[in-house]
């Protein structure tokens, strides 16, 4: 599929798609959908929401083709769209007024895990990776997003801050809080399994 665009650079695909070339847009989607889906799945933890987020991302890409800055990396642009799509998705699922990154919300999020089984309930039935994955799913959305982008995708904190339009200090605190929670889960898992995990 889209063999004709296999060698075409991202920026050229964007230009072609912006000019109305549907095959170029498809090629762009096919080239980057796995990365977008991976991030969406890590954030959402299930296929249904991951697909929703991925679709939202590419609709936003489609709508924004003409605003793409050709001196920028497409992947950086995509990361920004993915992060915002994750936040939008969470906002739509949450009560009105959900704000992921204000100081007040930050404090609240640190103390407000999502309602999923805790590590103690998971450890006997699975491996350490499962316990940690479960704990990541329980992280407040802001922490989950920052941890995923830093740990899994390797983005620098400055890049995450820029993409989310946040102070770098806020992103550092989010990462610190996320790691603190994961370390707690790790310790708990080790205690529960007598160090086997």
């Amino acid at each position, binding site marked *: 599929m889209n063999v004709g665009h296999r060698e075409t650079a991202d920026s050229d695909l964007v230009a072609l*798609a*912006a*000019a*109305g*070339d*549907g*095959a170029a847009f*498809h090629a762009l*989607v*096919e080239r980057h*959908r*796995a*990365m977008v*889906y*991976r991030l969406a*799945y*890590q954030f959402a933890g299930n*296929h249904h929401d*991951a*697909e*929703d987020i*991925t*679709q939202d991302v*590419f*609709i936003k890409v*489609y*709508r924004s*083709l*003409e605003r793409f800055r050709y001196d920028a990396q497409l992947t950086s642009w995509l990361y920004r769209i993915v992060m915002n799509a994750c936040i939008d998705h969470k906002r*739509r*699922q949450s009560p*009105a007024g959900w704000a992921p990154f204000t100081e007040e919300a930050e404090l609240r999020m640190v103390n407000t895990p999502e309602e999923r089984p805790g590590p103690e309930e998971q450890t006997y039935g699975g*491996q*350490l*990776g*499962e*316990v*940690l*994955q479960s704990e990541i799913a329980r992280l407040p959305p802001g922490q989950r997003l920052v941890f995923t982008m*830093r*740990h*899994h995708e390797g983005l*620098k*904190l400055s890049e995450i801050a820029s993409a989310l339009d946040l102070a770098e200090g806020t992103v*550092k*605190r989010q*990462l*610190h809080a996320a*790691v603190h929670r*994961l*370390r707690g889960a*790790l*310790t708990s898992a080790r205690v529960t399994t007598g160090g086997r995990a």
Partner: protein
Amino acid sequence: MTVCDLFDSPDIELYFYNELDAGERARVDAHLRGCAACRQRLDDLRAIRRALASRPVVDAPPAGDWSGFMRRLDAAIAADTSAPGAASVSPRVATPRRGWSLRPALALAAMLALVTIGVAIAARYRTTPAPAIESASQAPAQTPAPELKADPDRSLKVGTAEHLERSKLVVLGLATRDPQHTTAADWQYERQLAGNLLTDTRLYRLQAQDRGMTDVARVMRDLETVLIEASMADKPDRDTLERVQRLITKRDLVVKMQVVASSAGL
């Protein structure tokens, strides 16, 4: 183990993720040499990395099948740009000026859908003349009743409830078909009804999203997924119908539609 200077700071994480400059890194290096607690924190981070690295990477829909996703994306984009009033639904986003290779055909299909929707639904109503359904003959693009003009949210809720009532008939029709005894003509009829509702469903979903009506947006999203699967399936065969039925059941769609329609006050 005593609490050290770095206990409450993010320095160990930043060290681990290589986010410190050379001077700060040297400072943490020196600290680590004398602090067992922080060495343990660093080891924990390595353990977390190893453990997470062993997890399977999920970067595609189940079974790696992207065909459904691509179909839904195409339909969503077509609806986004060709649906009447779509630009006003999302005023933050300018409607692209460029042409989409499939757009003329999809735009025509959308227009035809709007024109024929009344006919198709009327045909459905003739076989199920429930009073509540008869009141649901108002198309969403029609002017709202005079008493509703002053309250757009109320108007949207009423339109939403009516649309859900209409759609429920189609969903029930799909859900109750016997895949083994559904003729091609029956299946074609169901698909046509589903296709006719698609554009309006997307319109209502976007409006609900824009106005923060989360529950409505969610059920419209589920309905949209079912309608797309039903109306745009590559193979309108028994397997497809069974897949659509599983989707309806899995998402508990009929009950959700009933609840949301009821909460809208009709």
